[in-house]
């Protein structure tokens, strides 16, 4: 289980780092294996910072990120390799995630050189075929090609295939489909759903509520670095309790109802401004909302 316990991240800004900026404040939630948790927030909410802390790309100022009870920030050199063998990240822009002069074979080969040195050639080929099949790519379409010869959807799926070659248990997917076209993005999303059935835990970071609602089992709503509402996705989206969540939901453009015709009542600007962001309290089974009060 991937757990975040009271995770806080403070960045130093200003001249000589005299000012501070709290990007993430006291965030606690967990991701089980075989579960997709979406982390939803607007720009500046700290959602990417949370993903980066899970991937050890930045260190939490307070609190801890643990995988199976081990603090990821405290791992030694050999443990880090094992860690990245089971937790991987994929980011928004597939076009800049690749080295443009490396062919696909070499991109995949780097996994073998780093993590799977003992593997025979025949086993490696089977593995490549298997993981490409799992993401719905034809070997002939991608092997031997340079990144610029492939479409965004193919590149993004290839990154997932690359991660799948490892004994992957958790995936941090940070806005992975924002840059894809509408006709191909849903396939990548369905792929995450299929991988979930195989026991993969996914932290799905997004700003798009419709995508989060479609794919995730649980939802965490982040505002200004604090969790304001979280719980089972149908509950958070079906009966949103926090004014901020209601505001987000009433702002989403639908294809069936115009703005202002929603069933959910839009919050007033003042209620939004004064909305609580204190400790989370349960209001239902697996549904938590921020209350007033200091943390």
């Amino acid at each position, binding site marked *: 289980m991937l757990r975040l316990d009271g995770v806080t991240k403070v960045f130093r800004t200003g001249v000589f780092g005299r000012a501070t900026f709290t990007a993430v404040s006291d965030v606690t939630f967990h991701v089980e294996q075989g579960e997709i948790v979406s982390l939803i927030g607007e720009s500046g909410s700290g959602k990417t910072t949370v993903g980066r802390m899970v991937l050890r790309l930045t260190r939490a100022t307070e609190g801890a990120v643990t995988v199976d009870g081990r603090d990821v920030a405290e791992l030694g050199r050999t443990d880090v390799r094992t860690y990245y063998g089971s937790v991987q990240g994929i980011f928004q822009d597939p076009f800049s995630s690749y080295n443009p002069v490396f062919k696909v074979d070499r991109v995949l080969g780097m996994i073998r050189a780093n993590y799977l040195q003992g593997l025979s050639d025949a086993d490696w080929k089977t593995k490549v075929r298997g993981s490409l099949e799992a993401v719905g790519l034809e070997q002939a379409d991608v092997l031997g090609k340079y990144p610029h010869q492939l479409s965004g959807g193919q590149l993004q799926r290839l990154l997932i295939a690359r991660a799948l070659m490892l004994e992957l248990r958790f995936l941090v997917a940070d806005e992975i489909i924002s840059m894809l076209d*509408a006709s191909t993005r*849903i396939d990548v999303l369905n792929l995450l759903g299929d991988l979930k059935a195989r026991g993969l835990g996914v932290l799905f970071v997004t700003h798009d509520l*419709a995508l989060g609602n*479609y794919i995730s089992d649980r939802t965490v709503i982040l505002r200004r670095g604090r969790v304001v509402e979280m719980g089972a996705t149908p509950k958070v989206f079906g009966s949103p309790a926090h004014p901020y969540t209601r505001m987000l939901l009433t702002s*989403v*453009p639908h*294809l069936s109802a115009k703005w202002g015709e929603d069933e959910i009542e839009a919050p007033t600007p003042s209620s939004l401004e004064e909305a609580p962001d204190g400790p989370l309290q349960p209001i239902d089974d697996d549904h938590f909302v921020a209350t007033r009060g200091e943390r």
Partner: protein
Amino acid sequence: MTLVVDNLRVYYRTLRGDVKALDGVTFDVADGEIMGIAGESGCGKTTLGKSLIRLDGRMRVVEGTVTLDGVRMPIEDDRAMNEYRFCDVSIVPQYAMSALNPIRKIGRMISELLSARGVSYDETFPELSRRLALVGLGDDVLERYPIELSGGMKQRVVMVLSTLLNPSLLIADELTSALDVSTQKAVAEMLVEFRDRGFVKSTIVITHDLSVLYQIADTILVMYAGKLVEKAPAAELTASPKHPYTQLLLGSLPEVGVRFEEKRLTGIPGRPPSLLNPPQGCRFRARCPLAFDKCAEEPPFTEVAPGRYAACWKAAA
């Protein structure tokens, strides 16, 4: 008719030949109409928007005419077009947030732009101030540098600035794409408000997001691989699309309320054809589940039902 575009072809010159980004596009926009142009990346929607105001160096008009308020626009002539820009045709660019000069205060920049058009800043000031107030900004923004404003504020400044001379046509290219949902809603509603108040006569909204268009546009035009695919009133297009591409595209959009476990949406297999050497006939043929022999022949973009246009043999039948 405010805008009439007739058989417009705009190609990009490259070393390997012409990329036929816009290949024979005919449509018109009525007075007071907000027309949405939707499509995936590379379908030619941005090329279309650009060719109505300013072609960049690699673009070449091969054929076609653009008429605005009965006047033929010299779109192929960069200099001659200058007379119309800002006064008659205006644009809110794709990254409006970075469209402002970073070393000019907002007020001074507006004053310079107006004087370039022979308009007095002092005389325009009361109107400018009124419009800024309308979008929720005070006069104090005029004394600030762009860096002091947030993304949403800059977007609103650019919108007010682009429409200050009451152009006949406003082109808004991916105006809301980089914004958070709450700001997106505010900016989109502002476009409608500007039209309602007569700041602009007609608007073309270019976006990949059909659900935003459904909210604000009167008609939606769908493009694919440099061609028009379908045109219909917004509500009709989203409720009962005629062209297979529009049907599949709408079917791949997750709406809030649709869940993976209950209903699995599907994408469109394959990818759009290369526009360097586009295939003969219908360009969606290779990905279309309904394709048959006749699709090797190019389907005309015709009226298939009252007020509804589509380029598909099956839709016409």
